[in-house]
């Protein structure tokens, strides 16, 4: 009996392994992925980074311009996250099981949020580029839409988890809908909501670099400019600036989370 079990498990493992290997070969074929080149490119890239990819004295002249671009990116990610958070909170209140007004509005708000978050930020940027052009607003709206979709989903989960008992208690005392929302739901889930906002700001710094490359704004544009003109010293300075920014934001948000959660 026991031996059969082991045999069965081993057979299952073999089948899964075969399927995965087959998929790897198939996908490597159609994407023209060269495994050997892939592995040899890692040491080659590291050697190249040590030889060329570091800031030098000349690239430090570019620092003020990089910092002003970085500033734009940071504020882009903060303002898109907070404004999207406000809208997401409204949709989450409609969408959540505990605070929904009716089933119809709840399904509609969940559906809208799902559309917005599942269209990738790149697609939003490409769509908005038509009429907004190479403008900070292109990036703002692209980040805003995806952040709104994502935050609505996690806010709904937070509200569902945090506040069912207190909502019930307030309903029993005859509180109105707005009293319930402002006295029970928002206070009890606020720490978690802020934690998600901070997480999204951090994510959006990275996303807005990507959007910046496509839309010609912010620090992403600075990187692609130096990268395409092969000024790798200045490009490496951009990378270092982004890494430091992300670390600082991570440290601040970890501190806030530790205190409020």
């Amino acid at each position, binding site marked *: 009996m026991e031996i059969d079990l082991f045999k069965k498990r081993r057979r299952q493992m073999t089948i899964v392994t075969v399927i995965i290997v087959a998929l790897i070969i198939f*996908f490597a074929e159609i994407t023209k992925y060269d495994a050997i*080149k892939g592995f040899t490119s890692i040491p080659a890239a590291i050697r190249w980074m040590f030889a060329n990819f570091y800031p030098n004295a000349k690239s430090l002249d570019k620092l003020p311009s990089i910092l002003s671009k970085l500033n*734009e990116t940071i504020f882009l990610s903060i303002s898109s996250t907070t404004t999207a958070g406000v809208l997401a909170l409204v949709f989450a209140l409609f969408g959540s099981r505990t605070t929904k007004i009716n089933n119809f509005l709840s399904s509609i708000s969940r559906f809208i949020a799902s559309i917005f978050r*599942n269209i990738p930020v790149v697609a939003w940027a490409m*769509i908005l580029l*038509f*009429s*907004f052009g190479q403008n900070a607003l292109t990036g703002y709206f692209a980040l805003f839409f995806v952040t709104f979709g994502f935050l609505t989903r996690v806010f709904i989960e937070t509200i569902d988890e945090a506040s069912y008992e207190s909502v019930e208690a307030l309903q029993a005392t005859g509180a109105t809908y707005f009293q319930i929302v402002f006295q029970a739901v928002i206070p009890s889930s606020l720490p978690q909501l802020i934690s998600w906002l901070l997480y999204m700001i951090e994510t959006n710094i*990275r996303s807005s670099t990507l959007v910046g490359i496509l839309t010609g704004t912010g620090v992403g544009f600075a990187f692609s400019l130096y*990268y395409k003109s092969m000024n790798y010293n200045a490009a490496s300075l951009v990378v270092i600036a982004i890494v430091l920014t992300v670390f600082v934001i991570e440290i601040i948000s970890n501190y806030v989370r530790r205190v409020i959660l």
Partner: protein
Amino acid sequence: MNITESVVSNPIQLDKSRLKRTKSGKIKVKVLRRSQVVTNITLVSLVILTIYGFLSFNYKNINFLEAVNNTITNVRTMFLDSALNHFTLSESLYQILITMGLAFLTTVIGGVISLILGLFAAKNLTNEKVSNVIKGFVAFIRAVPTILWVLIFAVAAGLGSVAAVIGMTFHTVGYLIKAFSESIEELDEGVIEALKASGASWWQIVFQAILPSTATYLLAWTFLRFEINFTNAVAMGAAAGAGGIGFELFMASGFYFDVREVGFITYLILAVAVLLEILSTRIKNRYLY
């Protein structure tokens, strides 16, 4: 006797010391705690930073209403009148498959590397020092945006699928090592201790205790990452010439200015993304919580 007395008298004393009064002698109903202060400061600074952000953006004198109107018209044409003009439906499905392929290769390579390094990053399997070194290194990898990793590798490997897969693998490894090592660290200390006491080797502990009991978590995290990698692969196609549906999107938007085609491609991406999200939500609810 003493005990009952202290029990009776203590609550009153405690209450008195806890009550805070305003200057006019009224009892304060709300007492600010540190967490509330930090909450308020965070919210206020977010509002101020947002307002400052809106004031500081370089709008380049854009006519906002006109742009919004144009976008609405565009979006309507895009989604109500979407069509393929530069390639056929089967070709576009093939491009989706290529994007899936990039995501799959990245997830598999990244998953294997993360599994090995994740074991060394878990505090209960190695010592604090090794774990901290790996976790610090991984935090650095995660701080660099994926697109920058891909572009950095593109210098050595050339623009294309190799740079995209290796670059995205870096970020995947950064994400999965954190998730894997935390899953392993949550494991009951007693299991490892029992095996250690019976004289099991490190590899025996890994294969007999760690992997069997965390396998579902690890697989669930890997699938979640596959979902993220699909979106990433679309982005790398558009921004780093990695091919696939992302590249077609970039061409339709940036070269042909074909609104209808952008709409169609967006529909395709949306369909796959929703499908992956439904799957990963099921997996997450079943195995991770």
